């Protein structure tokens, strides 16, 4: 029996330069995922047409969908390459089929599938996504938190800044200053925390200015593509109420 293979059709290029498509035929191994296919290509960087080429560049780290590095647009959908299985129950392709892989489009391309997501980390600075502690020295136990609140905060804390939500968001692009759903969801988390609450107003202000929550167009794509199933639209709704309250009554606090 002939070796079972899949074809990877990959969009390649560097920086703002031109893009080209290259196709690679990759043997199917058990438990294969998109990353293992890319690894095969670099061991034998030859296109399907027999042309020698450079190994494909991609970004990855943990390979277990917890670091957020390997987001790519695979068959038109932003997702982690590591958890995109080729075969098995969640497989995306059968032998002989083609898988299309592109870099995310909402960030500057570095090379091939690698993009620069600094913009997302900058957004975390803007919304002050941290608890303002007095220092790392011993100050005794932290505040008590009810298990109920923990069950809300924990899923929010799993955001890995992977970019799926913003890649799928029609309001997040070069021409818009929108900070993106992930940042708004984190504001919700920090504003729930007993000591994070003390600076809740500053974080709300940060998402009430230009590019903030008002720029959300409620397309609801984000929540559908989030690999960690973070309730992003729920967070946006909760923050919508909070910011509205602050807009209406915040001046009383000043």
């Amino acid at each position: 029996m002939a070796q079972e293979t899949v074809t990877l059709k990959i969009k390649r290029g560097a920086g703002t330069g031109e893009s080209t498509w290259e196709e690679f035929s990759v043997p199917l191994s058990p438990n294969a995922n998109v990353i293992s296919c890319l690894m095969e290509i670099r061991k034998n960087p030859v296109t399907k047409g027999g042309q020698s080429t450079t190994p494909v560049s991609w970004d990855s780290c943990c390979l277990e969908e917890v670091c957020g590095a390997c987001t790519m647009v695979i068959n038109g959908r932003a997702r982690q390459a590591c958890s995109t299985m080729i075969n098995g129950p969640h497989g995306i392709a059968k032998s002989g089929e083609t898988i299309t892989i592109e870099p995310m489009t909402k960030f500057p391309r570095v090379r091939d599938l690698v993009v620069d997501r600094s913009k997302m980390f900058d957004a975390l600075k803007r919304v002050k996504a941290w608890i303002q502690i007095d220092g790392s020295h011993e100050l005794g136990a932290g505040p008590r938190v009810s298990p109920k609140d923990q069950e809300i905060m924990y899923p929010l804390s799993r955001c890995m800044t992977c970019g799926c939500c913003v890649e799928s968001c029609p309001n997040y692009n070069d021409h818009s200053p929108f900070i993106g759903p992930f940042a708004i969801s984190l504001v919700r988390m920090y504003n729930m925390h007993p000591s994070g609450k003390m600076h809740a107003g500053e974080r709300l202000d940060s998402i009430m200015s230009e590019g903030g929550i008002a720029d959300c167009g409620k397309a609801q794509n984000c929540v559908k593509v989030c690999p960690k199933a973070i309730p992003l639209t729920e967070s946006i709704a909760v923050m919508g109420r909070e910011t509205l309250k602050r807009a209406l009554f915040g001046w009383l606090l000043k």
Partner: protein
Amino acid sequence: MAAKVSVKSKNGKVRRAIVVGGGLAGLMTVIKLCEAGIPVDLISLVPVKRSHSVCAQGGINASVNLKGEGDSPQIHMEETCLGGDFLANQPPVKSMADAAPGIVFMLDRMGVPFNRTPEGNLDFRRFGGTLFHRTAFSGATTGQQLLYALDEQVRRYETVDVTDDKGVTIPGEKMVRKFEFWDVCDLVIDDDGIVRGVVAQDLKTSEIRSFVGDAVCLATGGVGMVYGRSTNSVINTGSAAAVAYRRGAYYANGEFIQVHPTAIPGADKLRLISESVRGEGGRVWVPRDQNDKRKGKDIPEKERYYFLEERYPAYKNLVPRDIASREIFKTVVHEGYHTRPGVRAAFLDVTHLAKTPAAKHALRNKLEGVLEIYEKFAGEDPYENPMEIFPAVHYSMGGLWVGFEKNDRGGMKMGSPANAQTNLPGLFATGEADYEYHGANRLGANSLLSCIWGGMITGPAMASWRESVKGSAFDMDEGVFEKSAKRAREEFETYFKRTGSEFNENPFKIHDELAEEMLVKVTVERKNNELDGVIAKIGELNERFDKCAVLDTTPTGKMNQPAVFLRHLRGMLDLAEVIVRGARARDENRGAHYKPIFDPERQEAKDYTGEGAGKGRDDENWQKTTKAQYVGPKSAPKLSYEAVDVSLVKPRARVYKQASMDAAKGSLGASKEEPKGDVKAEAKPATT
């Protein structure tokens, strides 16, 4: 204030320290430096939020004793030393265990969403090598939540202005400058042998430049990629540690590589299934009938062989990792058991914990992160079907050799520049990149602790060093730095000459061959003749490395992953040699290092005619730290040995078959009493 520690140098530069690596250890070091008023350049291969610390799942140990079991830092320290088979210097272990409760409280204050008790306190669960509930956790993705907490604090410092000695803001200077997607390629060492900075390469543009630092810390993690497929992230090649090693830093206890008992096989990596699964009641078993073809869930209770529970009635599924891995290996590979014919795996079962919707909800709250990994990657529902697992390379107990200064209470003296400092003056190492706390085997949930504790002592140590060292790097002639950068650039340029037909090797294939050899012969069971074979193989791969093609001749100015990989492959080959040579030399069984000829239970020991057959752990000859020193390219490292400081816990046999019931009730019983059990039947009896 001495001029050399003023914020600004004479030529107007802000004096900074350098931290390489942005995992828990690196970030904690940064925080401590910032708190001491020292600005930092933080260099990392990946955005620090993606560091390998995110992969830690189960939790972080701290003897807070919130379950009223009588747990204490003293017991934590004793169990850590015992778990490490008495290879760790004990003063650092003591200080770490003492600091642990404060560390967990600090993380709690930083907003880590730890799981809670009904009263709103931190919840704790059990982990391997202890009978106490000592592990604080945030679902089953604790490393992620901890890393994010520290990442957020460091991000805050990215927004904090540097002020000069008079408190005036220096325009444009922030306490932390991050250099993400940068790879360290060399150290800058002055004529006195003092480390004054690093040379690093921007992976996005291939630009190489030097960084000036009044102290340099490597917090660059372990070396799992030497084994190719492991539970490690792809960045864990040990490249920065290898750079330091080649420049003369000792690499200590390299042969001690932890193999985690439970991981899911994959084509690209072996994904960890946390020990917390067993901590919450998960059970390891195989069908008693080796021809059983039924699905795990269809095999009745009495036809299941719970081999860990039968062999270790006290600790059951929570024996330390070295022991659990060996038992699974023995049961599956030597005794022929498996989950189904043709599959090399054992079952890890939580289905009994998810029988009712309420129970399933509770289980999900504690283990979702890891069970969802199984569901996504193995394609089966672990709440319905037992998981198929097999051991996988997981953690480097060894690492760069570092020193410590003892205090008069038997622990470490906080703020001493000797702490965490390598033998290269001015170079510090911390986290998994060092060798300090885990001896021959790390206990689960001690790694997050050792990383954060490591940062807590390394920051102050670097601050003291900065005050005591002769002169500041920022007042030195810039020529030294430019010379180092130029050398690194020239070396990188040589990669691009690797294009002729004589360069017919693919570096990624060389890596595969190295990994295969290491994985088969230098993990759970080690045999001297096989280790000799691995040494020969590394020699061969070293020769073939010289024939590796660059694969991508894109001129600098752009990202070039294949060229950078050559540097990392060089490092992996060097560190593989350190691991194997250390393992070959160490003729005893200790923790993760195990040779069947020294196990009296094994036929190999009975057949062995050499000295010490079946001797187990050999404290007389081998209770010492291995120190490997680089001699030159393609040469065997020079091995030397150093006595272990066992001033606090007297070495004794490791027995996990039974513990006195006192342990569960909260006295020191388990850890103080001499074991009375069947020592011979233990995987690894000791000689003391």
